[in-house]
């Protein structure tokens, strides 16, 4: 792929993503209002997929980190870093949409006594730290080396956040879609599943675009002239 040129595959991906996102939005807005929460319940079509994507993104970060440690190819590190950025974005979106929904339904934007909310906020902060660690590392290799360890360790939070509603029975409800059936109306489940697919495609599209940008950034950094680069060490000292 040439610089600045978007391949046909990516164009098709972006087009399909746009179509599925529109379909998800239409379904989310056309489902009947929930019996108790009325129209506030529609926010779950953004909130739940955002949370799901955060888990997926951080899982991919851990996978990219493991692969970097095994193969030492910067492409794996770019995958980890790009996925973490998107994960932080979607975690933030999940927290914000949860707060918008929580205020009218629970009476509070954020409840620190709730295990799901508190653990999600912690996960958000840890991955902000992950991104900061990358930013302040002196070179791409150093960033990859250090961040890969944190990327692998931090993924432990994903199952903890997911199962926090089962481990601690606090304010946040348990999973709405379970192996033994859903706790929602069938039309709402269908809309939610379409939105899950839409957000997953959105994640893949963002990831592909961000990895292209990251690769171009790496090329630019490598091509940037360095002060003193023209200085050649005397013969016999170069291998010292």
């Amino acid at each position, binding site marked *: 792929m040439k610089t600045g040129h978007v391949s046909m595959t990516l164009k098709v991906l972006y087009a399909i993503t746009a179509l599925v996102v529109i379909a998800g939005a239409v379904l989310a807005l056309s489902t009947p209002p929930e019996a108790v929460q009325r129209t506030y319940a529609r926010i779950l079509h953004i909130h739940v997929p955002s949370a799901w994507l955060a888990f997926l993104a951080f899982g991919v970060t851990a996978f990219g980190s493991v692969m970097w*440690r095994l193969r030492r190819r910067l492409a794996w590190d770019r995958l980890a870093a790009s996925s973490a950025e998107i994960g932080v974005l979607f975690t933030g979106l999940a927290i914000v949409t949860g707060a918008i929904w929580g205020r009218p339904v629970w009476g509070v934007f954020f409840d620190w006594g709730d295990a799901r909310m*508190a*653990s999600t906020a912690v996960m958000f*902060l840890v991955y902000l730290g992950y991104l900061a*660690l990358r930013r*302040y590392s*002196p070179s791409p290799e150093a960033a990859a080396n250090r961040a890969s360890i944190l990327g692998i*360790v931090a993924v432990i939070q994903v199952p903890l956040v997911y199962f926090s509603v089962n481990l601690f029975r606090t304010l946040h409800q348990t999973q709405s879609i379970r192996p033994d059936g859903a706790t929602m109306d069938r039309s709402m489940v269908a809309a939610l599943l379409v939105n899950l697919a839409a957000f997953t495609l959105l994640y893949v599209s963002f990831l592909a675009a961000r990895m292209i940008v990251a690769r171009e950034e790496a090329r630019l950094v490598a091509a940037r002239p360095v002060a003193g680069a023209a200085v050649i060490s005397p013969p016999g000292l170069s291998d010292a």
Partner: protein
Amino acid sequence: MTGFWFQARVIARNELLVERRGGETFSLVLPFALAALIMIPLAIGVDQPTISRLGLPAFWVVTLLFGMQIAWRQTTATDHAVRDQIRLSGLDPAAGFAGRAMANLILLVGFMGVSLVLTLLLYTPPAIDNWPAFTAALVLFAIGLSVISTLIADLTLGLSARAGLAPLLVAPLALPLLFAGSRVAELAGEAAISRPGGILAWLLVLVLVDLIGVIAGVLSARPLEETLG
């Protein structure tokens, strides 16, 4: 050098000897933490019931924010030459991590002891009836914080922004410790003495975080050594 625990003890002893000479923990970090404990009631004013209620939460927060600084004090073996020497001696990186974490733990326990006494004197918090549970929470909190701080201290070694970056990484990772520790303290009070099940659940959270920290620290010790070169 032979034996994992022997190596860990040697490193811990060395760290503590160097710290005794430098005295950073008890002459810099601790006084600053105590200043914070004194400033909180001054900011609240003369409302004694509020001060009393905020005593133990203030203790946990101050311990977390200042206690983590023990792990990246200047007297730790952060110099590259020192680390090269340790590596050339054939030390197991995991034992090195364990030794540094043990030294940090010992310093942190001392730090927490002094901070707790001052908290009890300054704030007069509600009486604690279940002292065994509270003591267990203190020890588990100290283990977790020392392990996490040591791991992050190693991870950020040599970075120019370390002073700001390390607390940013440790604080969220240590939040479950703060959360569980403060809940145990709350439940250990006389009003909640009849709920031992709740205390046990939060103590288990502390144990879980400690275990995750120890496993992560030991497993990442060798990759980190390769990383830092």
